[in-house]
């Protein structure tokens, strides 16, 4: 239970007149919990070869896990989390998962890159006019506050000009795919200039005008739902300009674990010839490619860019365990709260930071959270249904399994080995009555059989040999794999599952998703993202369109074990043909518009707008051959605050963006809807960008050279086979 002191309540009431005006845009800061230890910022490394099991530094716990030791009430220091109604104060634990995507496996909790002992750590060098100099991005600070299942994240990027003339810094970076970016500040010393959300072209024009006239300015643009570009103009020699952004997103949930992810590097993408909107992967020295190209460091280079991550968790229920992909320092405020920092010396910037926490989930199988906008009286809701915990009482269905494996160059090595292990596990679990097919793609596609073959012992042995002989090389013409996998007739006697195993390093996501949508039919898609910095956007959108799930295999994960668990679940669906009886509640704009099946480990989450009273809602479907229904419990919690409205808006934007790739509605019409929604709810999108200009002073001289921030290739990815040469 988060407490708010009477003083804050009083002041909140006093300032309602002011703050209430900004209900749609103001985000009030939440003080950090006091850390138990002050870790040094982590330092970049590209030492991917030296990996070891990770240790978690814990307080009051046993080795490898963290458990709360202090059962006393929460200190008052974090009580401001409830200010302006932003927390889930007093709420039952809301669903933590992706509203539409079932994540059946994340990266393993214990993997790390060892810190380097090399002299000069912390000084990524770039050759400029034969001089070795640092790149502009010096530090990234991440501060996340998790309340229930919503994470509010502040990110500070610190840019400094190490050169002897003015520069424009350009940095292409990832954020979680569902990140709703709602605040943007440019900071110059003690001065903080709030950026303005504008239509994208308008923001770019403002930035260019300011830049060309010598004003300090910054611009943030979204290139993909998970890829953003930061530009900072007219940084004078030796001077610094920081950029603060704030976003929030809903955490993923899987089998009792909530997962906070902070991605750190954009993975290289393969762009088929002729693709109009590529995100190229080029060497750091490249000066000819467009701004949206990702510049990569060579394996023998490192960046002086360091990163610090602080996460404060107020779960709303007891936190039973913590785990992370990185070395962390954890401390508990009480049984429902914890603070976590990235440990000193932990390397980070070439692989995603993942923090999982397991919560007590025995008492809640469904819930409904609501929020009513006081200005418009418009209601917003999030509804969730948790599935059964085990498959014991569920009937196994005959299956038609289609495996589609990426055998391109970026998959060579560990990713390919993991993908093979996963497929071998699936083959081991096929039973009489099942059929299967294997399709590989790189520059082209080929397949195991002319059509899905029966899962006989002989066919499975042949398939095992086929899989063993696969190797990585060539490009990633995924479109060929999609066509081959979805274009043949579906056998209605079997549940058809198509499983893609890929790192998703492509640039034509929209084309791929459009083809999937056209061809999906009755198939369910299960995406296996392989590698340390998977294209999560592609993986999850494919799974969403295919009403399936996604799993991520990190470098330390066992592909065999993950596929083993996955197979058991999908062969025992808990509820199919799902629909909802709203019982008189006037519901509109509900996402997802098509409900997925329910499997063990996969909750259903629905977000929408409503008018009226929410009660007696039922989820209906079929379990085996019988009708089945579940009554949704209403927690009557209305404290979930404006994030529910922005969560709904982000879902709407994501849905509209998806529809652009396959909808019959004119492209421009959908774009206008996205733009209007983004402006109304003050969110970044494909059509809206943040811009900030310091007009108080013009810098001297020309606007200087553009310097692109180079980044390491993701951990486990080979620079030689994925970064394009000049």
């Amino acid at each position, binding site marked *: 239970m988060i407490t708010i002191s009477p003083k804050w309540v009083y002041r909140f009431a006093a300032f309602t007149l002011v703050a209430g005006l900004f209900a749609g845009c103001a985000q009030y800061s939440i003080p950090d919990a006091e850390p138990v230890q002050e870790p040094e910022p982590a330092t970049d490394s590209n030492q991917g070869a030296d990996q070891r099991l990770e240790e978690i530094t814990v307080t009051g716990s046993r080795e490898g896990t963290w458990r709360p030791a202090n059962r006393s009430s929460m200190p008052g220091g974090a009580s401001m989390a409830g200010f302006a109604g932003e927390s889930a104060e007093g709420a039952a634990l809301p669903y933590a998962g992706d509203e539409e995507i079932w994540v059946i496996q994340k990266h393993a909790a214990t993997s790390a890159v060892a810190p380097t002992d090399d002299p000069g750590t912390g000084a990524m060098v770039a050759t400029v006019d034969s001089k070795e100099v640092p790149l502009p991005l010096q530090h990234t600070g991440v501060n996340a506050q998790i309340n229930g299942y919503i994470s509010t994240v502040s990110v500070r990027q610190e840019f400094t000009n190490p050169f002897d003339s003015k520069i424009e810094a350009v940095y292409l970076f990832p954020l979680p795919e569902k990140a709703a970016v709602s605040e943007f500040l440019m900071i110059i010393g003690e001065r903080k200039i709030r950026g303005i959300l504008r239509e994208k072209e308008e923001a770019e024009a403002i930035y260019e005008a300011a830049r060309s006239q010598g004003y300090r300015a910054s611009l943030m643009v979204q290139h993909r739902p998970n890829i953003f570009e930061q530009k900072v103009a007219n940084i004078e020699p030796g001077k610094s300009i920081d950029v603060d952004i704030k976003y929030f997103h809903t955490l993923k949930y899987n089998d009792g674990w909530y997962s906070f992810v902070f991605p750190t590097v954009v993975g290289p993408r393969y762009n088929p010839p002729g693709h109009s909107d590529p995100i190229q992967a080029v060497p750091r020295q490249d000066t000819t490619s467009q701004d949206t190209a990702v510049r990569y460091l060579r394996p023998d280079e490192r960046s002086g860019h360091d990163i610090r991550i602080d996460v404060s968790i107020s779960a709303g229920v007891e936190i039973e365990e913590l785990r992370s992909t990185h070395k962390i320092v954890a401390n508990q405020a009480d049984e429902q709260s914890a603070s976590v920092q990235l440990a000193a010396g932990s390397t980070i910037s070439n692989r995603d930071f993942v923090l999982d926490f397991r919560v007590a989930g025995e008492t809640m199988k469904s819930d409904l959270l609501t929020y009513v906008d006081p200005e418009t009286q418009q209601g917003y809701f999030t509804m969730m249904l948790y599935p059964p915990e085990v498959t014991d009482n569920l009937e196994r269905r005959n299956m038609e399994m289609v495996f589609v494996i990426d055998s391109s160059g970026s998959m060579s090595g560990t990713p390919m080995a993991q993908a093979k292990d996963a497929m071998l596990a699936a083959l081991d679990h096929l039973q009489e009555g099942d059929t299967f097919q294997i399709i590989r793609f790189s520059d082209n596609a080929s397949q195991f059989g002319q059509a899905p073959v029966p899962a006989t012992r002989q066919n499975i042995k042949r398939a095992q040999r086929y899989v063993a002989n696969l190797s990585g090389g060539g490009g990633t013409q995924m479109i060929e794999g999609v066509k081959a996998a979805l274009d043949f007739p579906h056998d209605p006697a079997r549940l058809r599952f198509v499983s893609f195993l890929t790192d998703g390093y492509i640039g034509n996501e929209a084309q791929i998703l459009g083809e999937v949508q056209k061809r999906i039919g009755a198939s369910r898609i299960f995406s296996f993202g392989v590698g340390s910095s998977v294209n999560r956007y592609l993986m999850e959108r494919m799974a969403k369109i295919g009403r399936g799930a996604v799993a991520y295999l990190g470098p330390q994960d066992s592909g065999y074990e993950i596929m083993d668990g996955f197979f058991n679940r999908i062969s025992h669906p808990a509820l199919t043909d799902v629909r909802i009886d709203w019982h008189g509640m006037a519901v509109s704009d509900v996402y997802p518009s098509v409900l997925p099946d329910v499997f063990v480990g996969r909750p259903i989450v629905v977000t929408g707008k409503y008018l009226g009273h929410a009660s007696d809602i039922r989820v209906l479907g079929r379990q085996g051959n019988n009708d089945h229904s579940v009554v949704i419990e209403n927690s009557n919690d209305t404290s979930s605050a404006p994030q529910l409205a922005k969560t709904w808006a982000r879902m709407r934007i994501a849905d509209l963006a998806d529809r652009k790739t396959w909808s019959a509605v004119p492209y421009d019409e959908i774009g206008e809807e996205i733009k209007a929604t983004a402006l109304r709810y003050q969110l970044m999108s494909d059509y809206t960008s943040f811009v900030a200009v310091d*007009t108080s002073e013009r810098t001297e001289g020309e606007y200087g050279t553009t310097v692109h921030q180079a980044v390491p290739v993701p951990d486990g990815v080979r620079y030689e086979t994925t970064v394009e040469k000049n």
Partner: protein
Amino acid sequence: MIGRLRVIVALLLLAVSSAMADSPVRFASVDVYIDTTEPMAAWQLEFSAATGVMQIVGVENGDSEAFDGAPYYDRDAVENGRADRIVVADYSLEEQEELPNGRVRVTTLHLMLSGDEAPEFDTRLIVATSHDGVSINAEISIEISEGSTK
């Protein structure tokens, strides 16, 4: 008390530098001051251009440490193409003795101006309150400048 001030800045804005004379747009900053006789914990103002073409391109924090962050602006400033008006506000949760008393710069508005017509700005103080949320007497004033070259 609600203060209101209209400032005509035509002469200032026409005095553009030669480098900017050919530019289709120009930039200016407006320092906004509020003068109170007792500690101020919250304020809200409206700023608009009665003539000329103006766009807000940044909202900066003021001089008081009690208002540490950048002020907030209302979404009407950018919604539906509305760029000629903005409502800005901020509040402080500091103790009374930490709050500003007297004349203080509460924000600097960063503007992009275009067109031949000299803009005429309207600045209106909507409200200023004490830490108890009670409206207090206050006057608002502004100072306008173009970004000067160092």
